[in-house]
């Protein structure tokens, strides 16, 4: 890849590295480019990356969803993809890259009223491609617009006298008195820190983007993670305890989600290249708010890592490419690929995460003095949801085995009574069906669980929990 033989590798001092006649306008990793060569090089680089990805894809013709937040990287990606596609149509290029392209966006105005959704819509409209959105709160209405089961985490703590953490949950029927927006804001209010909130936001957005792709019949999701973002994610996800699934989260392509391939074509571009590309091609982008926008650098792990990488990269401009090249060599372990998906984030859940946690972390400073019942007061923000199975303790599901290490930490710091979206209940079922563990008690428990879920999902036809309270 780096050693492409090209005519005239030798540089003309003080001139553009490509055309060697124009005065340079930008330096990218110590190489000088003039404006025209920079733009052309960026387009060629993107198309080369695209054809490399397509060659490895199972089908040559695919429909793609561009995951579009409105930020700089995804705006640049949208322009590159759309231009590539239309130039192919005009016959400049032999075949169009995709059979169809849909722009998919997650509307975050429920959590961020200041989110520039109109501006984002306008930017997407310029591409001329179909623009589809789901709102964050739609995470609570997925099954054909109907609301199905939610999971309430009743207890996430060390039980007195127990060696391991316990994560007990129960299925609840969503209350018609509570709108999806209220469920969503309550969910984020229950989380313990800005880092956890950003983590959950990532999880929900990623899920909704895949949902959009499936609804539109796309086989490929294009994510706009830049090289700088990959480097940041590498450090941030490792510190959040997501090392097990990290290779999947930063890979140029991932097929973890079976029917959907996730591609990251922007990883060959640094944030600086993207900013210059957008500036020089007139590509607009929006400022997408997060929980820590305008906050101090230590507001969250994401903010801190971003600042850390930006500072390093300023002094050592090879920081980002070095991290990215190293990450490219990272392969998910077979064990990870065979692992069940985490109930919450959907990434592989390592089997012994629970044991890891109890060995490595201090879970409760009160050393078991806090009894489980004292902790499990319901979060006061929501009216009592009707519990699926009658409210005795036997209806509690022990979910620790199906929650990954990082999400266990997230639950651990959340307030008891946190209500998780529908997809969690769905995954419980999936895990249950695919698991062939021989452990007897676990087997019996899962069997009970399956019965509960089945009963509940069938029950849903009675129309008592329609989507009328939503949106």
């Amino acid at each position, binding site marked *: 890849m780096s050693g492409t033989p090209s005519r005239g590798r030798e540089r003309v001092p003080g001139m553009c590295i490509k055309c060697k006649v124009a005065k340079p*306008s930008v330096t990218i990793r110590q190489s000088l480019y003039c404006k025209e060569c920079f733009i052309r090089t960026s387009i060629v680089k993107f198309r080369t990356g695209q054809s490399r990805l397509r060659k490895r894809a199972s089908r040559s013709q695919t429909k793609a969803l561009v995951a579009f937040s409105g930020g700089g990287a995804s705006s640049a990606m949208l322009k590159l993809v759309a231009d590539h596609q239309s130039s192919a149509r005009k016959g400049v290029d032999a075949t169009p890259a995709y059979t169809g392209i849909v722009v998919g966006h997650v509307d975050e105005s429920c959590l961020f009223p200041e989110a520039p959704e109109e501006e984002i819509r306008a930017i997407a409209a310029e591409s001329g491609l179909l623009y589809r959105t789901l709102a964050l709160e739609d995470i609570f209405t997925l099954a054909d617009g109907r609301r199905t089961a939610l999971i309430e985490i009743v207890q996430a703590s060390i039980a007195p006298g127990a060696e391991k953490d316990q994560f007990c949950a129960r299925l609840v029927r969503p209350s018609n008195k509570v709108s999806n927006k209220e469920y969503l804001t309550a969910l984020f209010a229950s989380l313990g820190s800005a880092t956890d909130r950003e983590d959950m936001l990532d999880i929900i957005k990623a899920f909704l983007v895949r949902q959009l792709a499936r609804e539109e019949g796309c086989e490929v999701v294009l994510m706009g993670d830049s090289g700088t973002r990959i480097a940041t994610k590498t450090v941030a996800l490792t510190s959040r305890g997501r090392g097990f699934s990290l290779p999947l989260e930063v890979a140029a392509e991932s097929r973890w989600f079976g029917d959907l391939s996730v591609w990251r074509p922007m990883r060959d571009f640094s944030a600086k290249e993207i900013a210059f590309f957008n500036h020089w091609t007139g590509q607009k982008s929006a400022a997408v708010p997060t929980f820590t926008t305008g906050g101090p650098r230590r507001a969250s792990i994401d903010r801190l890592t971003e600042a850390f990488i930006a500072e390093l990269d300023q002094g050592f401009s090879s920081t980002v490419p070095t991290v990215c090249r190293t990450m490219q060599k990272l392969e998910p372990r077979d064990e990870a690929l065979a692992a069940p998906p985490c109930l919450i984030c959907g990434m592989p859940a390592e089997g012994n995460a629970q044991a890891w946690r109890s060995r490595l972390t201090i879970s409760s400073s009160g050393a078991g003095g806090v009894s489980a019942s004292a902790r499990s007061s319901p979060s006061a923000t929501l009216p009592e949801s009707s519990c699926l199975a009658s409210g005795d303790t036997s209806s509690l599901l022990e979910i620790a085995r199906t929650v990954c290490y990082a999400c266990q930490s997230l639950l651990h710091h959340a307030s008891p009574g946190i209500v998780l979206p529908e997809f969690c209940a769905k995954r419980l079922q999936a895990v249950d069906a695919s698991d062939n563990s021989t452990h007897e008690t676990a087997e019996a428990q899962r069997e009970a669980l399956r019965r509960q879920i089945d009963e509940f999902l069938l029950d849903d036809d009675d129309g008592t929990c329609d989507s009328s309270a939503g949106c």
Partner: protein
Amino acid sequence: MASSTSIETAPKSTDTLLPKLDFSAGSLDLVVEFGGGLDALIKQELLKNVNGAKQAQIKFPKQIDQHPATIQDLIFHLRDFYVKDKPELFCVGDKVRPGILVIINEMDWEIVEDNADEYAYKLQDKDHIAFISTLHGG
């Protein structure tokens, strides 16, 4: 950080937000653009929307403390008078925060100056200077 420029903060000014500048040695007309979300840090009443780009037109002294005005002087001026309330999101110490790109007349400022000190760049009349954040939390 008392490292600001030699600007008299005289209260009497048509625009009460800005200090009175000393134009005895002449003035420079600059266009300063804020992108990538940086515009949110700037006092909105000082910004103009020009085809979607958030710009400030600034009349800046040609000389500051007997030396030609540099971009460092401009950065202090912006930090002290244009940034709303969180100067640390624009500058770290005397320098522009890492992750914020500076483009001078469509050129990466890292290569504008031959001597590699981008902060020493001497401002010229009609300069167009863009500050673009590449940071998420900007």
